[in-house]
């Protein structure tokens, strides 16, 4: 049996959960879903629409707000009770926070950030990016079950989830959580002061990455943006370095955009950047490295030096 750990916050299901259910359904084993929290009946009912054996619910006040210690305690008991062969989780920030501790406590393998799951004879091969997505590794997990697997966001299709003819059974699990043993004390999540620019409304975006070399070269990108009627945006390292404000950052920790045109200048195309822009209608990548993963999502690509190509583009646009 594959156990899928659903993710919810304040009773709202994280969409990545559906992707993980799709991955589990495709992995050729019976699937059970477990959801942890306080007051999560509605989420359980939502999950029960999937073609799964059961939705198990661990409802405890101490799980109301997520903590790593609370989840490790709860899931250790769940896994003990259900003895799954594999445990699948979405590769979210929350999973990153507790899954390595859970797997380590149980002394079981954890294969993170998988983009595909393949059968090779009688073993399962997990495909995951390494070297920032520039290479892909096929990995096998070793040792006794359960094996823990996290699924990269966007790698499996939520709309491919098989729905059941009738809702799956919802079964509460009696798990007692020792609240006193939880060492993390979280406060309510918040957003930083309102963003000055809402890039999600932009029709065109010119985004710069570390290939721009230094803040003194941003002017070049600004000129291209002006010539195209585009907004300027950036990958994370540009904002980390303070060359552009944080609210211009595209990606998993920044804004998600889907403009008509997205021009990536000197951006390698790490997954955390791609999730923020791969829904764009037309993607242009200009990068001196022909193997850069950004080309995998690009409609038009130029392998070249942006300091030569961009001035030529500006000149052409002004014609």
């Amino acid at each position, binding site marked *: 049996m594959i156990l899928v750990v659903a993710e919810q916050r304040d009773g709202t299901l994280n969409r990545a959960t559906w992707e993980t259910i799709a991955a589990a359904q495709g992995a050729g084993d019976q699937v059970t879903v477990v959801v942890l929290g306080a007051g999560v009946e509605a989420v359980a009912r939502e999950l029960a629409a999937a073609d799964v054996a059961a939705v198990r619910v661990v409802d405890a006040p101490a799980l109301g707000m997520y903590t790593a210690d609370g989840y490790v305690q709860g899931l250790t008991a769940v896994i003990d009770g259900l003895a799954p062969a594999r445990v699948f989780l979405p590769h979210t920030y929350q999973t990153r926070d507790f899954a390595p*501790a859970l797997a380590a406590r149980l002394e*079981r393998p954890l294969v993170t950030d998988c983009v595909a799951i393949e059968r090779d004879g009688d073993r399962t091969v997990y495909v995951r990016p390494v070297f920032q997505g520039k*290479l*892909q590794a096929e990995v096998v997990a070793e*040792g006794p079950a359960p094996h823990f697997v996290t699924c990269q966001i966007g790698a499996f299709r939520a709309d491919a989830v098989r729905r059941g003819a009738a809702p799956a059974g919802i079964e509460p699990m009696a798990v007692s959580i020792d609240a006193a043993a939880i060492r993390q004390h979280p406060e309510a999540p918040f957003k930083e002061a309102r963003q000055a620019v809402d890039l999600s409304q932009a029709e065109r975006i010119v985004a710069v990455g570390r290939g721009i070399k230094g803040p003194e070269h941003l002017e070049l990108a600004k000129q291209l943006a002006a010539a195209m009627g585009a907004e300027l945006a950036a990958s994370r390292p540009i904002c980390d370095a303070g060359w552009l404000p944080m609210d211009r950052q595209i990606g998993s920790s920044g804004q998600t955009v889907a403009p008509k045109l997205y021009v990536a200048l000197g951006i390698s195309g790490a997954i955390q950047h791609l999730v923020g822009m791969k829904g764009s209608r037309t993607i*242009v990548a200009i990068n001196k490295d022909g193997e850069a993963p950004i080309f995998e999502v690009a409609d038009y690509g130029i392998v070249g030096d942006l300091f030569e190509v961009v001035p030529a583009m500006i000149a052409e646009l002004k014609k």
Partner: protein
Amino acid sequence: MKIAVCIKQVVTREWQLRVNDQNTWIRDQDASFELNEPDAYALEEALRLKERHGGEVIVCSAGPARVAQVIREALARGADRAVHVESDGLATADADAVAAALAVALRDERVDLVLTGLQSDDQGFGQVGVVLAERLGFPHATIIMEVDASGDGLRVKRELEGGWFQWIRLPRPALLTIQSGINQLRYATLKGIMAAKKKEIRKVAAPPAPPATQRIVTLAFPEKGKQTQMIPGSAAQAAQTLVTRLREEARVLPS
């Protein structure tokens, strides 16, 4: 406050990756190496905490002899001393083996705080910090963007997805995984480089590796999924073709 920072040496971003003959790892004999990016931010955060609260910063790295390069660099930036768990196998080991090695290095140090990066640029497990916390019996918090150590414990700002954050309190000793961009980095000064030569690097033998939990069977360049039109020619020609196609084919430029 006694702070340990775990730093990993990885191949530079500029280095053209080549896969070895067995297709199991890269051919890195002739590669150039650098400090894993988030680890540089973790080190900087440790140095700032020391400036504010006093104490000591110890850097800790597990890997072959060549990792001495990033250890020296960290000492030059201001770390007080270093621990090097030396073993060739650790260069390609899984997260459990690396965490086990680092736990041995830190066992007798009695630190108040351990900082790691959130993820390595090569393996990208995103695991070593959290597994190390579990091995040391420390509480942890991940993807941290601010650290307040003014009280008895810690109050840390955790990054959530899509621009959300959350403050968390936890007792010390604790382990935090640090996100890039938490601070502005400082670089080594000539004085720092000179001072580093006199600083202690304690070598520790790697413990017997725990049973492997995972293994790379094949490493390859990803296949291109989407039909990308690659535009050839000189910069000027390519730019011209691109602009024409964006105007006439994709119709995405303002008219």
